[in-house]
């Protein structure tokens, strides 16, 4: 539990993602600066987040394919008050749902800019943390 009353040094550090057997390829991909998502062998839909079966047609499995980190903003929020202590120094920060051309959506930090609009084209870049790599989006330069 996080409160504003007492903060341990550990809480001031962003905890890295806890990968699982279904998602390891995704995080390994980001580390190698590649965006890998699953594509269903049956219905050919792309999907995110990683999971062991297609949420559209139920076919098990799915092959990891590389996509260009480029999409449009579906929705976004601006966090003015951080909840986890590790993010207090980051406010205000933006989180967006980005829709890729292939149809699947990603959840990402968005470089702060004005204005932000639904439908805006954004591109991803890789942002290294100690033990993991984040794919962060921003408006095309």
């Amino acid at each position, binding site marked *: *539990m996080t409160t504003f009353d007492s903060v341990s040094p550990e809480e001031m550090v962003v905890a890295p993602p806890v990968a699982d057997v279904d998602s390891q390829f995704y995080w390994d991909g980001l580390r190698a600066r590649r965006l890998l998502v699953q594509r269903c062998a049956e219905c050919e839909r792309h999907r995110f*987040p990683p*999971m062991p079966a297609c949420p559209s047609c139920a076919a098990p499995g799915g092959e990891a394919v590389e996509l260009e980190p480029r999409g449009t903003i579906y929705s976004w929020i601006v966090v003015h008050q951080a909840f986890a202590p590790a*993010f207090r120094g980051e406010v205000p920060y933006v*989180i967006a749902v980005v829709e890729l051309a292939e149809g699947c959506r990603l959840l990402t930090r968005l470089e702060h800019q004005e204005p932000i609009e639904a439908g805006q084209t954004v591109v991803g870049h890789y942002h290294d943390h100690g033990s*993991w790599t*984040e794919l962060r989006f921003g408006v095309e330069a």
Partner: protein
Amino acid sequence: MTPRAAQAAIAGVGYTPFTRRSGRSVLDQALEACRNAVADAGIETAQVDGIASFMLMHDSVPAVAVATGLALPGLRYGLDVQLGGQAPCYLVGEAATAINAGHADHVLVFRALNGRSGPRVGTMPFAGAGGQYRYPIGYDAYLMYVAMWARRFLLETAQGEADLAAVASTQRHWAAQNERALKRDPLSVAEHLAAPFVVEPFRADDCTVEVDGACAVLVTSLERARDLRHPPAVVAASAYRAGPRPGLDIGDHLLWSDYTRNYTSLLRDELFHRAELGPSDVQLAEIYDCFTSTVLMGLEGLGLCERGTAGAFVRAGSTSPAGSLPVNTHGGLLAEGYLHGMNTVTEAVLQVQGRGGTRQVANHDVCVATSGALMDGSALVLTTDR
């Protein structure tokens, strides 16, 4: 018309005080709310033969703990579900089904938690596969997920922050008549909009107020309820619905295609069909409101307002004490406190029973209540014994 099948009803409600620091165990509060519901209904505690409740990440106590603390001779029906605000209407519906099937006679449905001084659901990390994509980037509070939907909803339906503010402001009018409510001061739309954002598009008063406490209802057959202390609140219909691809955990909304429509739009037809009523028959609504946007989405989803018109409806005063469709007559979770929507159901019961005191609405024969905010949730139609 064919005769109705067996029907269940809610006979009583029970509360503890709602506080910011109870200094009490969750079990202690659960037992108090349950004892109060039993006494309110006017049955003997030993007649309780069913208990249903819900918790998130072990923030409450199981049914057997309450059965133990009530010194019940036994349980014929016990149900613990791992759900949040989606659960209250669902569990009342499940209790009614069990009663109609003869599996139990008197079922307590409760929610108890130290939601302010103990584990706070809004910011607790949820178990499940979706968290790894959220928490490392600071997408780590339930209000953020609802805010993400609210943004898109407001954009697509051409509504705005003033519509959210109108919800908060209107519900304060109701809360002024509710001694249990934690936020009872008047709040104008201008005051609301002058406050800073917490997570844009939400300000502090767009958000529920976390509390410690418990509340409960006692469900029994309509036939038995007719002989008890208060007029029955008839469970005319219940429905639960999750749409396609509801996600990997309670905070994972990435696969949901349309952030402008939640479960209310999906369960509407089934709910009203079961009740043999329509949206136009509804006289008051208790709509789950962890955040202001879910009231607008619920009004539209249930067909109580046309799409894109809920904000104007609220701004016109239609949901206020003087309005044509009273909504969230206790002040809602926004003002009364965040008992995860169990208190939304207890308020619906009080109103249908005609026990709303100074906030009692004039027409209370048909009430709709909802539970939940996003991909899945549930609803009830409660009626007087007509």
